């Protein structure tokens, strides 16, 4: 197979496409050539054992990690990167990266709400200072989202005074306040006490149902199977199994994927 030199988006990747993604941390190669696509409205879940590279893959999408090699398209636009030899790839234009990032909502495992701001300030910060929305509009958006995630009464609270589940719901609202084209969830429930997982999953399911494109890295298999339109099983930095959830979760072709699901040690 010859390497393509066009910027043409791979088929089915009009929302997101990654092609032959590699990422090494020092001598450790975490991603060994991962390709994946998501169309508009797709919910793509990425599953796999710890260390399989699923979070790294997700973090490459908005360049919180710069891949060592490979190409990324977001909303059909190729992120321009140049090869700096030993340093791997480096984005050509910080402005392009900032702009693309502002169209991607990211939800972190550890919430990462800004601790010096109230919930309301967290939700209006980027709309006001990145999108430069008028104040009234930013606050209107924030109010509507807080109501949606059930946190209206917490608007003036600081994150430290909320439960984990509330913090994560606020963090999801913060991401949605940018009206992103694409939502990334990086193990959104892994840091939560078991009894708080449900309230967060409910909010994510709700967003999935409104047809938003999402990529979810998760250990919640039942949830992933239910909400996704597409699933990927990563093993040792490679895509080991991919297809509709009925296949990946129900009748995987790969022996490793079958073992992973059967073991239940997520």
């Amino acid at each position, binding site marked *: 197979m010859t390497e393509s030199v066009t910027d043409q988006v791979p088929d089915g990747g009009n929302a997101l496409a990654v092609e032959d993604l590699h990422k090494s941390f020092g001598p450790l190669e975490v991603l060994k050539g991962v390709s994946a696509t998501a169309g508009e409205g797709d919910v793509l879940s990425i599953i796999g054992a710890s260390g399989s590279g699923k979070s790294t893959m997700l973090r490459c999408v908005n360049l919180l990690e710069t891949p060592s090699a490979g190409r990324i398209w977001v909303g059909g636009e190729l992120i321009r990167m140049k090869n700096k030899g030993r340093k791997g790839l480096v984005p050509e234009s910080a402005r392009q990266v900032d702009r693309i990032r502002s169209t991607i909502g990211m939800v972190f495992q550890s*919430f990462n709400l800004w601790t010096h701001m109230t919930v309301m300030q967290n939700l209006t910060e980027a709309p006001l200072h*990145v999108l430069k929305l008028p104040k009234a509009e930013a606050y209107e958006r924030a109010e509507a989202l807080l109501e949606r995630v059930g946190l209206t009464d917490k608007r003036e609270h600081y994150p430290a005074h909320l439960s984990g589940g509330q913090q994560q719901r606020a963090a999801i609202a913060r991401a949605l306040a940018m009206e992103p084209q694409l939502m990334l969830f990086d193990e959104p429930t892994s840091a939560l006490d078991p009894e708080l997982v449900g309230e967060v999953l409910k909010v994510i399911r709700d967003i999935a149902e409104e047809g938003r494109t999402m990529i979810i890295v998760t250990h919640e298999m039942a949830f992933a199977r239910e909400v996704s339109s597409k699933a990927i099983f990563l093993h040792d930095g490679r895509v080991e199994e991919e297809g509709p959830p009925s296949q990946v979760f129900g009748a995987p072709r790969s022996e490793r994927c079958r073992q992973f699901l059967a073991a239940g040690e997520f």
Partner: protein
Amino acid sequence: MIELHGYGPLLVDGAWLTLRVALASVALGLVFGLVGATAKLSNFILLRGAATAYTAIVRGLPELLLLLIVFYGGSLLVQNIWHGLGGESYVEIKPFIAGTFTLAFVFGAYATEVFRGAILAVPKGQVEAAYAVGMGRLQMFRRVMLPQMWRFALPGLGNLWLVLLKDTSLISVVNLNELMYNTRAAAGKTHEPFKFFLAAAVIYLLFTIVSMVVLQYSERRARRGVRMG
């Protein structure tokens, strides 16, 4: 009331100048510190080297020596430039400028280390969340890093400020008529050194107490949103 033989206003004038030198130095020194810390944490080896040299040299020299070097060296430099431009006569840089610059330089070197620690103490996730919504580096620094690093920097900076406040008295050596200089003048004229040095001590302590109140308030403000215990 203690009899100051009409030298009260002289002390007040001196105190006012002391305050001005201290405030000017701390403002400039904070800039030096932020630049120094950023340089020390930078990926560029040249910047890191320059910042390390700066902190090593400044922290390794007595403040008084540094002041004299800046004052006489600075004057020499200005004079050479002045003569090079065809000027004559003797020129000297103002003690206020030499003093402010020296104290800011010293403050900046110590503040570099305080800021460096504070930047490293801000959790990485806070910064990543800022980048993830599309903030550029400068915006991230201003909106997220700066407000959060104060929490960690303020106690250390408070200490440095108190030291700086007292170090202003060194500038009396190059004839800046700040509090210490005026106190000595009054003490000499009246032959009542104890009384005047005591009066100066009271004024320095007053500055310190006010500083501590302001610092306490700022620390409480910087800690907003942090749950204690």
